[in-house]
């Protein structure tokens, strides 16, 4: 039965879709990409539709273009001047292939170029994040150690660390007296995320969240939960759920900063969710996290969702 449906679906997408597209092209005088760029709401709905359309294209030139853009973004070369040239090159290719007059359709050129930036910027972001994650925290690396110290200063501005290895680390939710072993599979990414949250949102959300985590009954280990949320953010980025967030919040090529902001959003929302669950102890973490993750996925399913930390609700 399932096979039959798959067969019908393949048939429709292979034979019926081109006829449908041809019909629309003849009646509207626009190709599918143009119809999307003019018709779909900007942000995630438009970018995702363009992504799908490009992926389904049977033109060998488009396939070649996609392979090229994939290569560029996987190797972190989609930046600065090079990035701008690549976007205009990609737009020109599509204009040629689809025989679009850029002087008539200057609006398409602009909007399609933006979609290219977003789609391959996301892919590049994934590669950037992955290289941070696979960098193991190294206590012999001065830069890593400096960031760890900055984290302490941002979270505990009024307290000095007695030494590098001290029980004080547990006050911000590390497991033992040396945080280096807690980053594990999230590597430097776990530290960068925590540091971003603590320094960029230090006066508001992060200090609220830290103070909640210290609650004697409903508290939790701030840093450890933070590292687990890095894992969640990374998985959402990898499986594409985070596209809604990135496409709706980014005006230019998304950078690692956007990922950090996504993480901060998750951390802040997780804290609210945790408190609302009124857990009796840290042992309820797995269940609460699973529930939270499915809520997040549900809200990321809505392409029109705009995500922001709702400071007004801060207690």
């Amino acid at each position: 039965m399932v096979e039959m449906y798959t067969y019908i679906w393949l048939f429709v997408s292979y034979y019926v879709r081109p006829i449908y597209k041809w019909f629309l092209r003849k009646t509207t005088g626009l190709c599918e990409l143009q119809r999307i760029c003019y018709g779909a709401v900007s942000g995630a709905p438009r970018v995702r539709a363009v992504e799908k359309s490009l992926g389904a294209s049977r033109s060998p030139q488009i396939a070649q273009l996609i392979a090229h853009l994939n290569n560029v973004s996987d190797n972190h070369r989609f930046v600065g001047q090079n990035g701008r040239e690549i976007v205009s090159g990609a737009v020109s290719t599509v204009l040629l292939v689809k025989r679009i007059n850029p002087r008539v359709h200057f609006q398409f050129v602009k909007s399609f170029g933006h979609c290219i930036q977003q789609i391959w910027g996301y892919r590049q972001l994934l590669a950037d994040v992955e290289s941070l994650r696979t960098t193991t925290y190294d206590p012999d690396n001065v830069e890593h150690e400096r960031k760890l110290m900055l984290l302490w200063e941002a979270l505990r501005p009024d307290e000095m660390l007695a030494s590098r290895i001290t029980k004080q680390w547990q006050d911000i939710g590390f497991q033992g007296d040396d945080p280096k072993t807690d980053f594990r599979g999230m590597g430097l990414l776990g530290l960068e995320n925590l540091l971003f949250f603590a320094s960029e949102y230090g006066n508001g959300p992060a200090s609220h969240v830290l103070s909640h985590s210290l609650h004697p009954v409903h508290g939790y280990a701030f840093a450890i939960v933070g590292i687990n949320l890095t894992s969640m953010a990374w998985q959402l980025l990898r499986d594409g759920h985070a596209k809604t967030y990135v496409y709706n919040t980014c005006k230019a090529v998304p950078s690692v900063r956007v990922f950090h902001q996504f993480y901060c959003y998750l951390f802040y929302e997780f804290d609210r969710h945790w408190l609302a669950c009124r857990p009796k102890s840290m042992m309820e973490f797995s269940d609460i996290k699973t529930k939270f993750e499915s809520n997040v996925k549900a809200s990321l399913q809505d392409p029109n969702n705009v995500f922001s930390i709702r400071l007004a609700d801060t207690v």
Partner: protein
Amino acid sequence: MGLLSILRKLRSAPEKELRLLLLGLDNAGKTTILKTLASEDVTHITPTAGFNIKSVVSEGFKLNVWDIGGQRKIRPYWKNYFENTDILVYVVDAADKRRLEETGIELYELLGDEKLKEVPLLVYANKQDLPESLSASDLAQTLGLPSIKDRPWQIQACTASQASGVREGMEWACNTIKKK
């Protein structure tokens, strides 16, 4: 073959369920062992906040493995998971010499608990790939395992991140239960 006889056959060979409890200090490698047992990817593990549980089939047993976080703050909750434990699996980071004493104290506290009385003990001497790690026999001596007389025990060298030695430990655990 009638339906009845099939049913009878199914009932005569049930998969015995075992409850395994994985304990040890933080960063010992409990979650890595759990994931290795379940043949899952071990490259993106995070510290366990709370606990993880997985069921795996091994040696004709269904193993329900409970992996409880090892940080000091949640050790007081360990005892909530003692009930009906068939095998106690204690994981030690054999390269963390600084905390050998602490890990020994926690272990003997477990062994002294009424609910874990006579429960067979499997100790994993994990992280054998690190140059400074103690061998299984040295670790057994350091922890004073040979003086344990009230239950079967075993020490198993392993490198959980490379999946080496983990299965061997489980084989011992299952055989010990079979003999009972």
